[in-house]
C-alpha cells in the first residue's frame, strides 16, 4: 500500500507531467518534429531559423534544457524525477532539447561547483538559454595525453593576465564565443602551476585556424593566443587549482561521451533491422546470412550490457553525489562499442556502406561513413582509451606504477 508521501509524490508528478505537455502544446512547432538538435551540438555554425530560435528561447526561459541546474542561475531547478518526465514528454512528441554544447555538457557543471557567485551569475544563465557557445582550450601540440604539460602562459600583469601560447584540436573553436582554458601561471610546478581561465574568443590576439579531418569536415582548430588580455575576474578557483578543476571537468566530459544521448540515440534502430533491409531473410524472417547474424547478435548483446552498466553507474553515482571514476569504464566501453557498430554497418552494407558522395548513396549511408571516420576520434579525445585504462588500473584497482 502506498504511503501518503508516495501518493503525494505521484500526484505532483502527474501535475508536472501535465504542465510539460501544456508547454509542449503551446511552444513546440510541428515542423521541428523529429529534427536533430544540430545547433545545440558542439559544432556547426549558428544559423538558426526563426522557428528554431523561438523553440530554443521557450525552452531556455523555463530552464528545461538544463533541467536539474539551480533555478537562481537560469536552470530548471527540477528533481531528477521531474527531469526524466521532461525528457519523456519531449521524446513522445519528437521534440529535441535545443540547449547543448560544451557549456551544458562540461563547463556549466564544473563552474557550478568551483565558480564564485559572480562567475555563476555571469556565465550560467546564457548557457541555460543557449546563447553562448563554449570551447575547450586544453590540448596543445605537446600536451595531449600528458595534459599537465601545457605551456600556454598567463602572466600576472597586476589587474589582468597576459596570455601567450597555442592550443590545438579546439573543437568548435571557430564558432565559439568563449573558451575555458588550462593555462600555466607557474613554471616551477607541473600540476600546481596550472590555472583555469575563461577567455573571450573575440579578444584581440586570439586567432583560430580550422583543421580538416579525415571525415572531410573541419570541426576543430588550432588556436593561437598572442598577448591576449584576460581580466583577473575570469580566473576560476585560485591560481594553481586549474588541474583539480580541469580534471573534474574531464569526468563530466567522459560521462557525456559515453552515457550521453548521442550514443543512445544512435542505437534507436537495431543493426539486425538494418541488415534485413540490405540482405535476404529466410522463411522465418531471420537473416539468411548466418555469419552476419551471429556478429550482430554478439554486438547487440554487449551493447545491451553496456546500457545496463551505464544505467547502474548513473544510479550509483547519484547515490554518491556526482560523477566518479566509473566514468572511465563507461567512456572506454561506450566509444569502443560505437566504433564497432560503425564497422558493422559497413559490413552489413558492403561497398554501398563506403560511399563518399553522390546520389547513389542515401543520405544516411553517406552520413554513416563520415560518422565512422569521425568516430575514430572518440577513443582519442576526452582521455584516450589507453589513458582510461591507466586510470582504471591505477586509481580504481590500485595497481602500481613501473618501479
Amino acid at each position, binding site marked *: 500500500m502506498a504511503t501518503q508521501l508516495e501518493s503525494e509524490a505521484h500526484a505532483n508528478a502527474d501535475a508536472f507531467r501535465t504542465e510539460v505537455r501544456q508547454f509542449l502544446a503551446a511552444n513546440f512547432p510541428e515542423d521541428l518534429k523529429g529534427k536533430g538538435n544540430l545547433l545545440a551540438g558542439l559544432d556547426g555554425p549558428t544559423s538558426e531559423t526563426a522557428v528554431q530560435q523561438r523553440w530554443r528561447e521557450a525552452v531556455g526561459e523555463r530552464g528545461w534544457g538544463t533541467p536539474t541546474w539551480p533555478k537562481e542561475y537560469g536552470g530548471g531547478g527540477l528533481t531528477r524525477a521531474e527531469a526524466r518526465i521532461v525528457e519523456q514528454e519531449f521524446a513522445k512528441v519528437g521534440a529535441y532539447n535545443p540547449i547543448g554544447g560544451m557549456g551544458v555538457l562540461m563547463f556549466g557543471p564544473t563552474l557550478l561547483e568551483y565558480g564564485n557567485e559572480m562567475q555563476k551569475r555571469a556565465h550560467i544563465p546564457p548557457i541555460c538559454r543557449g546563447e553562448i557557445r563554449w570551447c575547450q582550450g586544453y590540448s596543445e601540440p605537446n600536451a595531449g595525453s600528458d595534459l599537465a604539460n601545457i605551456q600556454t602562459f598567463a602572466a600576472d600583469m597586476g589587474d589582468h593576465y597576459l596570455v601567450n601560447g597555442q592550443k590545438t584540436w579546439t573543437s568548435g573553436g571557430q564558432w565559439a564565443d568563449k573558451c575555458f582554458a588550462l593555462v600555466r601561471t607557474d613554471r616551477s610546478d607541473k600540476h600546481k602551476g596550472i590555472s583555469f581561465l575563461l577567455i573571450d574568443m573575440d579578444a584581440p590576439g586570439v586567432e583560430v585556424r580550422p583543421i580538416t579531418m*579525415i571525415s572531410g569536415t573541419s570541426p576543430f582548430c588550432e588556436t593561437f593566443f598572442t598577448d591576449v588580455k584576460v581580466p583577473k575576474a575570469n580566473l576560476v578557483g585560485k591560481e594553481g587549482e586549474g588541474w583539480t578543476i580541469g580534471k573534474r571537468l574531464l569526468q563530466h566530459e567522459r560521462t557525456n561521451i559515453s552515457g550521453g544521448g548521442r550514443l543512445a540515440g544512435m542505437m534507436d534502430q537495431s543493426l539486425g533491422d538494418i541488415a534485413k533491409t540490405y540482405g535476404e531473410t529466410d522463411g522465418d524472417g531471420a537473416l539468411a546470412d548466418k555469419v552476419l547474424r551471429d556478429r550482430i547478435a554478439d554486438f547487440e548483446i554487449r551493447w545491451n550490457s553496456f546500457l545496463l552498466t551505464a544505467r547502474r553507474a548513473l544510479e550509483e553515482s547519484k547515490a554518491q553525489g556526482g560523477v566518479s571514476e566509473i566514468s572511465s569504464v563507461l567512456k572506454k566501453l561506450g566509444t569502443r562499442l560505437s566504433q564497432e557498430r560503425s564497422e558493422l554497418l559497413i559490413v552489413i552494407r*558492403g561497398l554501398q556502406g*563506403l560511399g*563518399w558522395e553522390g546520389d547513389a548513396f542515401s543520405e544516411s549511408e553517406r552520413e554513416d561513413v563520415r560518422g565512422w571516420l569521425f568516430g575514430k576520434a572518440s577513443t*582519442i579525445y576526452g582521455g584516450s582509451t589507453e589513458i582510461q585504462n591507466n586510470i582504471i588500473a591505477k586509481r580504481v584497482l590500485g595497481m602500481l606504477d613501473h618501479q
Partner: protein
Amino acid sequence: MAVLSEEQEMLRNMARNWATNESPVSEFRKVRAAGEPQAYNSAAYAMMAQMGWAGIIIPEAHGGSDFGFLSAGLVVEELGKTLTASPLLATSIAASAILLGGSDAQKAKWLPRLASGESVATLAVDEGAHHHPLAIGTIVSGGRLSGRKAFVPEAHGANLFIVAARDGLYLVDKGDGVLLATRRLTDQRSYADVAFEGAAADKLAGGGDSLLDDVLDRARLLTAAEMLGMAQALFDMTLDYLKQRVQFDQLLASFQALQHRMADLFTDLAQMRSAVEAGLQAVDAGFGVARSATVAKAEANRVLHAISNQAIQLHGGIGMTDEYNVGFYLKRARVLEASWGSSGYLRDRFAALSGY
C-alpha cells in the same frame, strides 16, 4: 619475406625506389584534388608499364616478362605502401582471366596491349554491394551481353571489361551499349556501376568450369598483396611515430602497453605476409590456389583492419587530420576488405573448401 630470386629482388627494389621517389602519397593527394573519375595519373601508369610491370604475369610471347604472381605481388605491395593509384591491379587481374580462359587469338589480341600499357582492363563480376559470384543475372544472347555490374574498379580508365555472365566470362570492349555511372567511394578511386545493354561480347571459352573461381582467386591474391603493402606501411609509420613522440617526459615507445600492442601487430603482420606470399607462390606452382588464396585474403582483411584502426589510435589527434596520411590507408583498407570477399564470405568459403 619469401626467399626471392635475384631478379625478383631487383624488381622489388626498383618498385620500392619508384614508389618512394616518384609516387609518394603526395601524388595520390594530387589525384584526389583533381577529382577526375578516372582517379589515376595516366603518365604515371605509362611509366609503370614501360618498366614492364603490367606484363609481369604475361608470357614473353605476348609481350610480357612471365615473372609470375609472386613477382607481380611484390610490385603491387610496394605500390600499396604509398597508395599509388593505378589500374595495374585491375589490369593484372583481367590479364590473368585472358591467360586462363582465352583462345590463342584472344591472347594475341589483348595481352600485348595490356602488357604495354596501351590498354587497361578490369574484371566485372558482382552485381550488388557484396561479393557474391553465384548471384549473376547477366546474360548473353546472340553475342550480345546485357546486365548490370556494381562498383567496377577502374571502370573509367578501362578499354576492356572481363564480364561474368551466367554461362561464363566474356570480353567486352568499352563502346556501344556500355554505360558508366560513377560511384565515389571513401577511398576516392575509380569505381562505377556499369550497365551493359546488348554490348558485343566475346566468350573466354577455355579454362573449364572453374574459370571464374580461378580468376577470383587471383583477384583476391593481388588485392591481398596491395593490402600487405598498406599494412606494412601503416605499421612502419606508427612505429616511427611512437619512437618520436614524447608525452609524460618519455617516448610513447617506452610505454609497455604500447610495446605489447605493437608486438601483437607485428605478429599479425608476420601471419599476413606468410599467407599472402604463400598464396602468390601457389599460383606460380599451380597447386592449391583456391585454399591459399582464401586464407591470404582472409588474413589480409583481418590484419589490415586491425592495423588501420590501431594506426589512427596510436597517432592520437594528428592521425585524425586530413593532412596526415593515415586516414587514406584506413579508407582504402575498408574498400579492399569488402572487395572480392569480406571476412565473412572468405570464412564460409574456407569452410566449404575444407569440407565442413
